[in-house]
């Protein structure tokens, strides 16, 4: 995922765009055992060419996310920092 880390302001959203040739599934937390930041799951499942926004991040914190279809693949995980 590019960028692997992004910083936004409280009250903003993040748009995930799938520019790959395969589907991806964006989920909050470092892995399925540690779900976090429910705003992220609104981006969710994305087919190639599809894009979708997360929910509004209302509190300052750091949100890790991963690709549910590629668990454990470092290139398909990242972090959103809300300030």
């Amino acid at each position, binding site marked *: 995922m590019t960028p692997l880390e992004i910083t936004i302001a409280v009250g903003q959203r993040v748009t995930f765009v799938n520019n790959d040739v*395969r589907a991806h599934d964006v989920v909050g937390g470092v892995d399925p*055992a540690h779900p976090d930041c429910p705003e992220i799951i609104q981006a969710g499942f994305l087919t*190639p*060419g*599809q894009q979708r926004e997360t929910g509004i991040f209302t509190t300052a914190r750091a949100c890790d996310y991963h690709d*549910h*279809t590629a668990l454990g693949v470092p290139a398909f995980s990242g972090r959103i920092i809300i300030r």
Partner: protein
Amino acid sequence: MIMRVVVAAVLAFTCCAARAFAQDPPHQHPTSDTWQWGVEGNVFAGYNYQYRKFTDFDEVESQNWLMTSLSKTFGTSSNLEFVGMFSLEPFTLRDIGSPQVFQTGETFDGAPLIDYQHPHDLIMNLGGEFSRAFGANGVTIAAYAVGPAPIGPPVFMHRPSAIENPQAPLSHHYLDATHITPGVISVGVERSGFSLEAGAFHGQEPDEDRLDLDTAALDSYSVRASWADGPWHLQVSGADLETPERKSPYDATRITASASYTRGDENRSIAWLAAFGQNREVFGNLEAYLFEGTKRIRRHAFYTRIESVAKDILDAGFHPIGVAHTHRQSQIGALTLGYSRDVAAPSFGRFAIGGDVTGYLVPENLEESYGLPWSFHVFLRYQGRVGARLSHVH
């Protein structure tokens, strides 16, 4: 892309074989007291277009397989047969596979494949069978380094009802995906058309290295009961599969049932198959229903496939032990209509041109991501055979 076409063309023109017609019922072994060999080839080379909501896909590609056998009859009641089946799909399809909307099964780069049909391994089958008749009864013992586990109907590549169709069924991994299983030992008994088979095999799907020969422990089991009489063939089967999906720590149970009808000759024939498959997993039970048929009238072949398959595409990721949850299911419908026409029948095989169109019924929970996709294929197809007709159509 050009390389893939060239390889496919070379394969098509070098499979020197006589005219083929895959209408054989299962489990009929050729009988000869001298060693007999046979080679059968089937090659599709064509254009695959996939219309999607956001990004369309198209590909020039080739699906292909080559079956070989060496057999001998001992006395009047015993038969030994060695079989090998090979595919150049690791070279004629992209590494990720053939684009096919809603297709699932196996992995690429460590992630489950979605919307792609994986390439088949270079070595699809390698092993042998020994069968012996005891009066009206028959016993068969089979051992494969890689081969078909005794579950499900014959794999789609061997089915007369699917022989004209280059596309794998969406239900492939619910019915016949264990046709490439690393390590299979099975025993079967047969009497008056009824047969009962039991097998031990490695239950996990092949790895992503399409060129190697996987070896692994026999950790899964299956049983298949079938009945064949004339054009009819019925089977019910079940399997306990040890961690069938790579990287997923959970086991599964597969249940299948099918009925097929195959009648005719090279000039006029009809073949159809109706099948049900269910994968019972910790994530839920996923069911698939399939009907497919092919009608041949001399040089013209008409084929169709109708499927209704429950997919868990929206939750297709892997789950560590302890965090499994019920997956959201999407019941997908697919209808394929196709036609092929023989254009040349030289002594070494039969060439046809053909094409098909597939439309899909998309459930509500996939509409936002998929819309109303459809696809078409146009292709050149070669079928050929030399030597003995193969009996290996499990």
